[in-house]
């Protein structure tokens, strides 16, 4: 991945959010640069998905701003938010497919509900996306008849069918084995190269997820640390980042840190 663009798709400025007495986000500042992949990592329960829900407009901050292409999500009307969300594609952690619809109908849903496209065009578009996900023969099946990996691929096809400018991935490989995870990453890389979307990925899958990232941000104690390239992240002197890297990638000794820089560009 290359760091090619400095225009911001999303900016979080001093975002705060509490649930009851518990403050989950404390002055979160984060930018997602257009056309790049930003990965948010961190231990469970630190608020990764909460950040994602703020970006999607599903939660409103108690304080601070969430700007999507310069527009503040927190102060938008429902109608304005609907317009902004037309640029979004989302792959949910548990995929959120509609169980009573076939795979084809799930992928076709945004086209049918949001556009006046003819059924012929919808069919062509959906079949193209399913073929891109290696699911060409699966259109007539129901989600319950698919494996976990296939469901994720259907979710990705649905997320991409409207050609979004920003795609959000909430734990895209949770519950998948190594080969299925690699398949999702391969499809991510392939589709991003083709459709040129900005991506925000919330993931536990360290260090593998670093291969896809242009920027890595760590959420710790309600704040964002890092948001730097994976190389810089792994070599960071910040004690919290260092502790996280050591915990997730194994102990790294100062003398070995440069050598330990093992991953290759995708």
């Amino acid at each position, binding site marked *: 991945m290359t760091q090619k663009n400095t225009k911001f798709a999303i900016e979080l400025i001093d975002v705060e959010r509490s649930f009851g007495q518990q403050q989950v986000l404390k002055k979160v500042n984060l930018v997602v640069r257009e056309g790049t992949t930003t990965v948010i990592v961190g231990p469970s329960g630190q608020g990764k998905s909460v950040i994602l829900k703020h970006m999607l407009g599903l939660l409103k901050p108690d304080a601070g701003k969430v700007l999507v292409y310069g527009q503040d999500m927190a102060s938008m009307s429902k109608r304005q938010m609907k317009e902004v*969300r037309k640029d979004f594609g*989302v792959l*949910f952690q548990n995929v*959120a497919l509609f169980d009573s619809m076939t795979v084809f109908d799930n992928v076709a849903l945004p086209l049918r*509900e949001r556009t006046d496209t003819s059924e012929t065009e919808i069919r062509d578009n959906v079949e193209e996306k399913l073929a891109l996900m290696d699911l060409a023969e699966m259109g007539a099946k129901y989600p319950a008849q698919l494996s976990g990996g296939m469901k994720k691929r259907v979710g990705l096809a649905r997320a991409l069918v409207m050609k979004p400018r920003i795609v959000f991935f909430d734990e895209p490989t949770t519950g998948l084995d190594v080969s299925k995870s690699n398949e999702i990453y391969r499809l991510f890389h392939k589709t991003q190269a083709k459709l040129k979307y900005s991506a925000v990925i919330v993931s536990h899958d360290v260090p593998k997820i670093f291969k896809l990232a242009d920027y890595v941000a760590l959420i710790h104690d309600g704040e964002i640390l890092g948001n730097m390239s994976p190389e810089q992240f792994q070599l960071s002197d910040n004690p919290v980042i260092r502790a996280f890297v050591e915990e997730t990638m194994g102990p790294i000794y100062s003398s070995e840190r440069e050598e330990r820089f093992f991953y290759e560009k995708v």
Partner: protein
Amino acid sequence: MMWMVHTVGRFFQKLGGDFLFYLEQAGRMGIFLGACLLSIVRPPFKLGPIVRQMHFIGSRSTFVILFTGSFTGMVLALQGYYTLRKFGSEGLLGAAVALSLLRELGPVIAALMVVGRAGSAICAEVGIMRNSEQIDALECMAIDPYKYLMAPKFVAGILSMPLLTAIFDMAGIVGGYLVGVSMLGVNKGAYFQQMYASVVWNDVKMGLVKSLVFGLLIIWISACKGYFLHLERSGGFGAEGVSRVTTDAVVLSSVAILVWDYLLSAIML
């Protein structure tokens, strides 16, 4: 003395907390209803989803409505016959059965049947959609969940309920006829003649208005309970959460039907 002050303090704290919770819930339900009714009149209008919901709420309830309607009419005739016989007024049986059904029992029992069959299913369906992030997915796809999910259910509920009530009333009158005329020997002509003479448009209108209101209440409460499953105080997630809100929806809908039945009767009589 101090423990008493603490106990009283805790009591009022809980009372205040409960009051605020129920006030918030009532406000949320009001806003939900407004948003659903607005979504009905906002384009685009699609007939397909409404027909599918009418099939689910209406057509698939027909058998249970026919069955319960018949037996309600039969028991009304049986009880009515022995009461009227004491006064030598068996000929009024048809009028008694028809008026009881049209004004009260038809709309109320049909609505209770629909609560049990369709209301619970709607609440569970919407609740599961909330739990599995399907409603969030709709919002993120810029698809209005009120328009896509709720509007067809509301239209179908409001249209289906009067039709189901009419079927219930008809089945009840036929059931009453079977027991009163065929089994107990009430004169066939008297059964229908007295019915014709006693039932006026206002009786039909009362049943119609009640069934429309009950249709709205059932869908409103059932859908709203499922939609806001995640905001339940006792924690709405998981299978247990869905079962809890479904039970709540059935109980609340049934109580609301009986309360509104009294209010509408008081207004319209």
